């Protein structure tokens, strides 16, 4: 076959040879506005597509319907919590409130009764905060140091302990509940907030350690080696290099722990006493108590109040939340 077939086309001639080379334009086909119009009859430009193609209707239609379904419970909770009881008894749970009242919210927060306590969910809220703050801090400190030791300072047996830890994450909590009750009782912490904080730290350890270990392992080893050459030790490298470099993963871990611990029910009900119950336990006791007349509006206000903390975290953190659950889930 001939080498370099040169095409001779009326407007686009560029025949390589120096002598008969045309004006500058032909050297630069398609350059700027001077390029010739070569459009001929037939399809040209963007393929015509209807904005409402069947494909788009199917995709957006399905997603919108599904999203409405997912939003429905939240909507129902909100409208119910803003209605008075008479309106609830007469009406339709999907209807917006005719007369908006915030009384159920006030009652849920400050007056609803669980057993003998009639100071509302506020007690549970503050209990949850008292559980949450130390649990989150303690579990993250311990897990990040663990992860750091596992990623950068492996010692004989460290991987074995880590494997046990990860396998342990699959053991149903029910298997370990009672031995922990005994241990806490032995040290006198059973039924106290401190005991619950320890329990949360223990059960948060597998996923958090994994999270930190993988993150620290992805930090370039050269950096770690350079610090070693500079004479930095275990703690110096941790505090001066690893922690400042890893703030995003600390945020991810925090999101993971705050939602996880706030939403916990099982440990709260087992390891604390009624006046120390976290918000979820107290909520369940308020709503599912068999005594008295059911006040659905107060129940729904209480339910929303309990969901508010994780929901706020969720909507603020956005992509980081997704990253947190993905990191926790994919590898856990």
């Amino acid at each position, binding site marked *: 076959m001939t080498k370099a077939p040169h095409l001779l086309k009326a407007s686009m001639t560029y025949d390589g040879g120096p002598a008969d080379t045309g004006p500058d334009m032909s050297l630069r086909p398609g350059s700027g506005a001077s390029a010739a119009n070569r459009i001929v009859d037939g399809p040209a430009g963007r393929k015509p597509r209807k904005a409402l193609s069947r494909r788009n209707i199917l995709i957006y239609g399905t997603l919108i319907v599904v999203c409405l379904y997912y939003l429905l419970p939240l909507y129902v909770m909100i409208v119910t919590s803003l209605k008075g009881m008479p309106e609830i008894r007469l009406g339709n749970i999907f209807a917006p409130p005719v007369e908006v009242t915030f009384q159920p919210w006030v009652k849920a927060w400050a007056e609803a009764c669980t057993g003998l306590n009639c100071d509302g969910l506020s007690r549970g809220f503050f209990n949850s905060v008292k559980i949450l703050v130390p649990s989150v801090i303690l579990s993250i400190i311990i897990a990040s140091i663990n992860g750091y030791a596992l990623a950068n300072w492996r010692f004989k047996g460290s991987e074995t302990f880590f494997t046990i830890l990860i396998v342990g994450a699959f053991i149903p909590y029910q298997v370990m509940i009672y031995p922990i009750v005994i241990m806490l009782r032995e040290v006198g912490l059973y039924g106290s907030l401190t005991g619950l904080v320890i329990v949360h730290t223990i059960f948060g350890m597998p996923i958090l350690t994994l999270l930190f270990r993988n993150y620290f392992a992805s930090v370039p080893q050269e950096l770690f080696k350079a610090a070693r050459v500079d004479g930095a030790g275990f703690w110096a490298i941790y505090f001066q290099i690893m922690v400042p470099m890893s703030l995003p993963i600390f945020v991810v871990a925090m999101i993971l722990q705050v939602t996880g611990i706030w939403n916990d*029910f099982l440990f709260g009900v087992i390891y604390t006493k009624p006046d120390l119950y976290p918000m979820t336990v107290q909520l*369940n006791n308020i709503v599912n108590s068999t005594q008295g007349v059911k006040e659905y509006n107060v129940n729904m206000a209480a339910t929303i109040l309990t969901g508010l903390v994780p929901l706020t975290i969720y909507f603020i953190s956005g992509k980081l939340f997704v990253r947190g659950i993905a990191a926790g889930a994919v590898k856990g």
Partner: protein
Amino acid sequence: MAAATKPSRWHRNLNAKLAAIPMIVTALVVFIGGTVWTVVYSFTNSKLLPREKFVGLAQYDRLWSSSKWLISIENLAIYGAFSLVFSLLIGFVLAALLDQKIRFEDTFRTILLYPFALSFIVTGLAWQWILNPDFGVQQVVRNLGWESFAFDPLYNPEIVIYGILIAGLWQGTGLIMCLMLAGLRGIDEDIWKAAKIDGIPMWKTYIFIVIPMMRGIFITAIVLIASGIIKVYDLVVAQTGGGPGISSEVPAKYVYDAMFLSQNLGQGFAASTMMLLTVVIIVVPWAYLEFGGKRK
């Protein structure tokens, strides 16, 4: 000079070991020790307090002849099977829809995932209200003129577990969708291009090329859903309390009730050991497939 300032090998390891003490204690004492303790004491006749009087398999005999436990197992099987199938199906379909380079993807994803941020207690109470036969969906439809409409899963022992399933799926499918979406995004763009050049229709590309490529994500999702299923407890407590009667009991609740309500520790230990056994049956083959293969 350098050797003098550099910490010795022994010292370095000491720091790491000290730092790892909480992990070592948790792994050895709580996870291994606790599990072994519970399994051992499941062979005793412990009642209010643990006792070392061994009775062989008596607790297990009692367990498997208890109707509450049998119902729990049946419920778990139904809930598990449907939850697994629907979570994967819905999660994948939603992820595939979100992966069509659509507008407002972030908004859709935010809406589909928000239930996952809520606790099972909140989820259960919300759906308890929606499914309330006197005020909820059933009544709304009846008010529209369909007088004989019946949909009261939480008050009908026959279908109560499906009422819990509805709430469980609402809470959990968003997570599976996110996983699947991450999996879909991980697929090389060129694979789609190659399939387009080959003229493979989109649905065929998904079924014959993309899904087989997402094997790892599917396995992760299955393990995740399965471990969630076995743990299901709070949802039932909030939504039905195990009722009507004992028709929506689940194993995790059986364990709690035996240990902390009916002072029957031995039953609790036996039931939790059965739960552990279930997990072992699920996790061991998976771990073997995932990690056993790689070592070869």
